[in-house]
């Protein structure tokens, strides 16, 4: 009897490494997505959950036989719960050299405000 075996390395799902930097106007998110092209990247926001899914394209040159392999073409997937301070309608994304940069702006109401003090005497 012949049984189907699943030894496909492409099936692995990888949590991409992510940095989040907080600024006054919002949050910058940097995500390592090596080997991902723009067309293979999907960013969705659903009820305050940000889902980033991407697929790395195969890196082999035509006719290449691998001798040593430490990384594969994989599926990247990561979910983030957005805080209520984030304005989900104005998220900007940019993919450059394998790094996805997302800017998550704060809602205007939650920005730190300076209060002017007037003096009357």
């Amino acid at each position: 009897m012949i049984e189907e075996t699943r030894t496909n390395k492409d099936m692995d799902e990888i949590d991409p490494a992510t940095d989040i930097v907080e600024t006054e106007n919002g949050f910058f998110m940097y995500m390592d997505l090596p080997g991902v092209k723009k067309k293979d990247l999907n960013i969705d926001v659903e009820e305050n959950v940000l889902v980033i899914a991407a697929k790395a394209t195969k890196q082999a040159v035509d006719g290449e036989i691998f001798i040593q392999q430490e990384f594969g073409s994989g599926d990247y997937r990561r979910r983030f719960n957005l805080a209520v301070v984030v304005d989900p309608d104005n998220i900007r994304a940019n993919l450059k050299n394998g790094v996805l940069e997302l800017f998550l702006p704060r809602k205007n109401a939650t920005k730190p405000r300076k209060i002017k003090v007037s003096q009357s005497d």
Partner: protein
Amino acid sequence: MVIDFGSISNLPYEFDKIFSGVFNPQQYKRRKIAYPPVNMGEDNANIYVHAEMPGIDIDDLDIAITPKDVVIKGERKLPEGRYFRQERISGIFQRIVAIHTNIDVDKASATIKDGVLLMTLPKVSSTAPKKVAVEIE
């Protein structure tokens, strides 16, 4: 060598990482290997070295090719600011990849695309496999 300051500034997350490593051994294995991860392949004419290095410009890289090995040296700088979460590694790294074939150092080339470095190292013609016709008498 890669200096990972994330472990100091984000200790609770480090515990999470250990737990996720236990439940996801594949991910754990990926983290433990040298940086950058390297794939190596060949065809009849060339040796190919692929290295995963997102966010690194070719100007920040120093690649030295000798007939025996390839040395990839570089520095990864991350933007400064108040980090809410830090997982990406930063700092100076170096990796030496041994090439067990004679290569033509002068014709080697390297490109970076989508955060993956590809080096093409042409084999010296004498090491390319030659077909020898065998006749049976």
